[in-house]
């Protein structure tokens, strides 16, 4: 390791190498010069070309030098790297290895979960969120429930428009936020009652996830039995199932502190609002207009019953979600 000590004073003129990712600026040269007089380099800094675990942070962090208020142990590597061709090769190798690993992971994930489809469901805007929340709480104010179809260049229908362009399209942002908010709100309520334990958060989350999974599986099974095919996607079902958290939060906040009649009237109102929302939203998917029936057996009456059952079981699910329980024993 003797060649390390010789580099202390010899490289002030060389600009710091930023891993070939971004241009250098004047202050970084100054910081690099400041780096020269830092404490001696740690000896494990020399990246072997064959080291699979080459520090991937080096190209991104090291050559900036320590900014005021920020301590980077990798800032000390700067002196070695630009003078050492093996080190440069090692860093390029590390960059390539990172890219290859990312692609590999993406391909594997793509097989189970379509990332493009997920992105479609998270493509929301503020206006969309507000109008959706208003539609959940005051569904009679919503003028039109029609979902716009996405067309490609030849005019063929390839799906539905994303939530950013269509206020009636289901999204996954509100359900995810609703789930997290529900867990936090239950934690808050239990805390205000004085019996909070940290594992209650886990129990609540598990319970909420259990309700969602149960409902999605049930709806999926009945969709299979009733020949509801591609007009109701799996992620659509998850999204519609997750909208109940919004109304549940509003009701469960009342439960510990309001008189019982207020809680139950809020439960009934929000339950009916959610049921109305579900019926109007799912009507296009489940019950086709008579003009568009092809050769498949539609079972129109059964589908209407199915839609009604979905809407009414929302009451049951909200009631289940309102039964929070703390794991602590009352003193």
């Amino acid at each position, binding site marked *: 390791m003797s060649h390390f000590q010789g580099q202390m004073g010899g490289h002030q003129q060389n600009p710091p190498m930023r891993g070939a990712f971004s241009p250098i600026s004047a202050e970084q040269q100054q910081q690099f010069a400041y780096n020269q007089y830092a404490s001696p380099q740690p000896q494990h800094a020399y990246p072997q070309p064959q080291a699979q675990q080459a520090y991937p942070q080096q190209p991104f962090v090291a050559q900036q030098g320590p900014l005021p208020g920020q301590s980077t142990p990798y800032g000390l590597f700067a002196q070695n790297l630009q003078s050492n061709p093996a080190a440069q090769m090692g860093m390029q190798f590390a960059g390539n290895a990172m890219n290859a690993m990312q692609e590999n992971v993406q391909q594997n994930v793509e097989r189970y979960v379509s990332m493009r489809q997920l992105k479609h469901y998270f493509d929301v805007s503020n206006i969309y969120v507000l109008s959706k929340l208003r539609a959940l709480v005051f569904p009679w104010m919503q003028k039109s429930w029609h979902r716009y179809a996405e067309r490609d260049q030849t005019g063929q229908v390839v799906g539905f428009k994303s939530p950013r362009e269509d206020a009636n399209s289901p999204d996954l942002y509100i359900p995810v936020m609703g789930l997290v908010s529900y867990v936090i709100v239950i934690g808050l309520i239990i805390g205000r009652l004085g019996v909070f334990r940290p594992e209650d958060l886990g*129990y609540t989350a*598990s*319970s909420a*996830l*259990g*309700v969602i999974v149960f409902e999605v599986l049930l709806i999926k099974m009945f969709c299979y039995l*009733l020949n509801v095919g591609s007009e109701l996607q799996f992620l659509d079902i998850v999204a519609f199932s997750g909208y109940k958290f919004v109304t549940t939060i509003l009701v469960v906040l009342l439960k510990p502190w309001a008189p019982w009649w207020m809680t139950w009237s809020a439960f009934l109102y929000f339950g009916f609002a959610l049921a109305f929302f579900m019926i109007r939203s799912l009507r296009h998917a489940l019950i086709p207009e008579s003009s568009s029936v092809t050769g498949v057996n539609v*079972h129109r009456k059964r589908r209407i019953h199915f839609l009604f059952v979905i809407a009414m079981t929302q009451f049951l699910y909200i009631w289940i979600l309102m039964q929070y329980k703390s794991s602590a024993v009352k003193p």
Partner: protein
Amino acid sequence: MFGFGTLLYVTLLLLNAVAILNEERFLARIGWARNSAELYGDTESVKAKLINLISAVRTLMRIPLIAANVVVIVYALVLG
């Protein structure tokens, strides 16, 4: 109360219940047999789909169910 673990146990028990239905002693008696004549014409009715679903569950899930049951039994015995 209604947690994810409970849901897993419940689905395991229900799948067990579906898997042990005997084809000839029970399903044929109540007309839900796999190879009965009514299925050839109409594969879209609810009854036909239900019969297909039950037979598919029984065919596919017998062996994984053995493994899942063993895991749950060991878990219940060892960890209570």
